[in-house]
């Protein structure tokens, strides 16, 4: 059932190429059957030789049979190659389709989704999981189709020529299957699970050891820690060896059985020929001896193919985990916001699988042109609340309006044109600075872009770049610090010139030089706009119209800096602490 459903999913990705996949199976089956035909001709050759004995000259068909055998062998091979070509084309197509569909899906997802899952993991899913399907579709499935068809063809051949020998040669095969069944029995499954567990434990220990190496070394504990790592490997080794020992007997029996056909046949020959030998019997015997090793090969092929199936199932499950996330709904009757005021009514939001709301029943109202700040302890909900306004997520409860219109009723493109979000860790794309900034307004002239860069205080960045504004970000020798990246992204926001601005103040700046420039640029960008600032340094927001103090997802206090300072609540406490820490000194000499 499960296998079918994963195949069904692969077919969904294949589109019309699925027929190519199916053709590859059919071709593979045909090739497998044709591959048996040469055996028939060999039989004919031997038959003719035995018929005309001892006058060899009478065997006139020999060369024709011989060439037919060769011809069919080649034909089978050619068809097999065709099968592989079909399967490869389909496999690569499926892979490409999986990638582009996943990526197309990702872009429709709520923006906050990325933070939850991490870009490294998504990349792994998009690239590696789709790659895992390649071998499966390109080689495994057609080979398996061929491998399954061969026994059917063989069975027909075996029973047609001499049913006694046919049945005899099947006995070891049946026994082999029974042994294989016992190998996958319950007891073995449990042992397998234990083995997997010990492998996992060893891996965990290895991860811990490698990850911890820097700490271990700074504390001069490398000998002790290394000993633990070694112990983990040793104890895993014990499991491996004992598991192999348990599996050894059935494995040996299985292999012996599938290889025993040959011997059984020869022994049988003596039994059946006790009453004298006929040429036909001899011929059939030879034929059987020739043909039964194929059973061995096919059985082994089928046995080892199950491993890969699991990998593919896992890969598909992983891609599904992304594909099953629902995109934000786009309204069918979009409305335009009237003005740039922002109102929140009883807004709550909870992250998936979280125990409590990240934002809980928040109501607030920001008038057009107002500058407000969100402050509070980390984890208090500042960034989440701002993200909800830009509709990176949809609120679980309550209503968010911009210009009096629910954000869910605004077309996403229009919403994006209305709100600029300057991120804390601004991502620049691997293209020229010019193009990076131009993203804010795709039809902007170069002069406009340069003006925006100047306004954002980026002239010094351009000056030090080898090719100025045309320098490709990330190319050799073009290092852009976090603060510089943020200034360039401010230039981008300036060019976009959206009436609502959300600024996430960067917490970490390597040097004050940058910080001063970023803040200047922020100030210029904010003029005449409705601004929400997520602040980490209280000194930067003392002049805002209103400060919202968020704690545990609720608004704890609100008001101007002066009013809040007088309230002697959380904000006043934070303000005192902030000033203290700004004056704090190493060694405590002057505190």
């Amino acid at each position, binding site marked *: 059932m499960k296998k079918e459903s994963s195949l069904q999913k692969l077919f969904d990705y294949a589109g019309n190429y699925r027929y190519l996949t199916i053709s590859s199976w059919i071709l593979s089956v045909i090739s497998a059957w044709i591959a048996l035909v040469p055996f028939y001709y060999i039989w004919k050759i031997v038959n003719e030789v035995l018929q005309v004995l001892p006058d060899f000259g009478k065997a006139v068909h020999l060369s024709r049979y011989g060439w037919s055998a060769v011809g069919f062998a080649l034909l089978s091979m050619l068809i097999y190659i065709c099968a592989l070509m079909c399967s490869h084309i389909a496999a690569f197509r499926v892979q490409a389709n999986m*990638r582009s569909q996943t990526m197309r899906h990702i872009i429709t997802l709520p923006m906050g989704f990325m933070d939850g899952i991490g870009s490294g993991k998504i990349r792994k899913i998009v690239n590696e999981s789709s790659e895992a399907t390649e071998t499966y579709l390109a080689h495994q499935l057609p080979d398996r189709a061929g491998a399954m068809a061969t026994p059917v063809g063989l069975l027909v051949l075996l029973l047609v020529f001499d049913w006694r020998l046919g049945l005899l040669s099947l006995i070891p095969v049946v026994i082999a299957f029974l042994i294989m069944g016992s190998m996958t029995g319950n007891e073995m499954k449990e042992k397998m699970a234990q083995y997997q567990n010990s492998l996992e434990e060893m891996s965990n220990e290895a991860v811990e050891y490698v990850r911890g190496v820097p700490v271990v070394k700074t504390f001069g504990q490398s000998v002790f820690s290394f000993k633990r790592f070694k112990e983990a490997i040793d104890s895993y080794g014990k499991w491996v060896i004992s598991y192999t020992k348990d599996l050894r007997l059935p494995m040996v029996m299985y292999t012996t059985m599938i290889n025993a056909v040959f011997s059984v046949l020869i022994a049988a020959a003596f039994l059946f020929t006790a009453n004298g030998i006929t040429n036909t019997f001899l011929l059939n015997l030879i034929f059987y001896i020739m043909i039964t090793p194929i059973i061995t090969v096919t059985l082994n092929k089928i046995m080892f193919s199950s491993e890969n199936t699991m990998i593919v199932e896992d890969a598909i499950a992983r891609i599904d985990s992304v594909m099953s996330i629902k995109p934000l709904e786009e309204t069918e009757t979009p409305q335009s916001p009237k003005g740039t005021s922002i109102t929140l009514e009883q807004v709550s939001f909870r992250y998936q699988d979280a125990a409590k709301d990240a934002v809980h029943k928040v109501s607030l109202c920001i008038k057009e042109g107002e500058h407000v700040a969100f402050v509070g302890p980390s984890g208090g909900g500042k960034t989440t609340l701002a993200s909800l306004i830009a509709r990176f997520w949809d609120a679980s409860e309550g209503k968010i309006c911009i210009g009096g219109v629910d954000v869910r009723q605004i077309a996403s493109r229009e919403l994006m044109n209305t709100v600029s979000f300057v991120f804390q860790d601004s991502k620049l794309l691997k293209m020229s600075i010019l193009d990076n900034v131009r993203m804010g307004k795709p039809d902007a002239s170069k002069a406009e872009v340069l003006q925006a860069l100047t306004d954002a205080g980026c002239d010094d960045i351009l000056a030090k770049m080898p090719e100025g504004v045309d320098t490709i970000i990330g190319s050799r020798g073009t290092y852009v610090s976090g603060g510089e990246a943020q200034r360039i992204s401010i230039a981008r926001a300036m060019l976009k010139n959206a009436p609502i601005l959300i600024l996430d103040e960067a917490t970490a700046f390597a040097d004050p030089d940058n910080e001063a420039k970023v803040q200047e640029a922020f100030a210029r960008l904010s003029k005449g706009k409705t601004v929400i600032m997520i602040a980490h340094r209280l000194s930067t927001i003392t002049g805002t119209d209103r400060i919202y103090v968020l704690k545990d997802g609720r608004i704890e206090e609100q008001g101007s800096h002066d009013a809040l300072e007088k309230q002697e609540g959380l904000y006043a406490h934070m303000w005192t602490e902030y000033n203290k*820490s*700004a004056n704090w000194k190493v060694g405590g000499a002057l505190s």
Partner: protein
Amino acid sequence: MFGVLKKIFGFAGSKKKLLTKAMVISFCGAVFSAMQFGALMLALDQVLSGQQAGMLPVIAILLISVLGRILCFYYSVNEETEVGYFMVAEKRIHIGDRLRYIPMGYFNDNSLGNITAVVTTTLSEVENSASRCLVMVVGGFLNTFALCLALTVADWRMGLIGICGILVYLWATEMSQKATSKTGPGRQTAQINLVEAVLEYIQGMSVVKSYGLEKDNDQMAARTIEESCKKTLSLEASITPWMAVRQLVIRGFSVIMVVCSLVFYSGGTMLLSRCLLMLIASFILYQELESAGNMSDTLQMLGASIDKANSIDDTPVMDIDGKELAPKDAGITFENVTFSYGDRRILDGVSFAIPEKTTTAVVGPSGGGKTTLCNLTARFWDVESGTIRLGGRDITDYKLDSLMKNISMVFQEVYLFQDTIENNIKFGKPDASHAQVVEAAKAACCHEFIMELPNGYDTVVGEAGGSLSGGEKQRISIARAMLKDAPIIILDEATASVDPENEAELQAAIDALTHDKTIIMIAHRLKTVRSADQILVLSGGQIVQRGTHAELIRQEGLYADFIGERKEAIGWKLA
């Protein structure tokens, strides 16, 4: 193919003997298996001559063949797993040991991730498939070879043809592998491009979305995917002919054997029984060879895995086996120290002295070399030229462990082990008593929040410190350093104000830790370094200014500029 086999042998290390033993056993198995042909030959002789007398030897040979094979298989399974496990275990331990000699500076998220992947996934792959693959491939060839030998006994001409077939097939496999490896780089480039495109797409998504540029970006990504699809397809097509050649060789030689045996028989130089035997042999002979050849692709992948594991040996190591020394005092001097990272010179002839129990603040623009300077002091890297001294002795004279006894580092990023909080703190001094741990925790402002945890000090920290906040983790690491009580503290001052409340506690903790110690700190808040005994202004890898705050503020220069800008930054208001 032989290259990979050699690689596996090289990888086996001290288990080479065991591996050879496994091969010998599997060759014995092949010989036993070839004995079946002897039995068949005897049987045919007798059946055709109409005698039944010699039935016993045939059965005897068959019995020996079957029993011999069972025995060989029984032992070879054992040897194979043992070789697989032990050689990988050895490698794991070898890597683990080597990590102790790799300069600390080499470790970052990327390199640690890479090493972790090698130690777990890559080596597990080798462990599972190396010996099986080796035996399948080598065993396949040996089996065929043994059969050919058996044929030679029956008729040397046929044996020769059989062996020729093996050689030609080997050649074809080798050539097809060469063709594959030639396409390897192309495939890899396509892969790298794709990974980059996907990464770019994903990382830039927030920007792309917030500027409503989904369509353009989507097309760009779609194009890359399309290109990579086409590229791999064309590469695959270039390998296909070789696959055909391999098949052709096998089928061709089977046919040659059939034709030859018929010709020899009709020419009277071969008995009928031999001729029939050869007809049978012609189709059985190459079956194993074919599966061995197909397996050789897996062998190729195995080779790549082994290369990946071996590449860890290419990382730089340093000599950490100095002497167990205790420094005379905790003063540090840099004498004309130069250090480059790759082509980039980070420090250029830096000299300074830090007297014992004084505070030195290092300031300057990012990329100026501040972090490197601290890392060199703790010997994360070795200097390119010049000398760093601790207590008057070159730090390379110290055994690394004994050097580290003198230094505590407080980083912004903290790694906690998946162990109890108590053991995490105890890491600073393994023989500390519980009372000492609590004392350190109290001094580092951890005690309160630790007591609020479900199991107090016995709470197990989640993977990489999961359930604790950044500030809490950092304070635990300070408690750890506190317990270690090293005379020198290297401190990367937090720029991220976690949140004001947390920060106050963090600073109190650092305060307690740094009391009466030699301190080097990378300072981001200039206000906080006013009281430092010495300020080093580092720019472009050189010390451009040094002195106390009072001295430097009066000079025209980088420091005064910074102070000015900093004041501006703090005084700036959003309005």
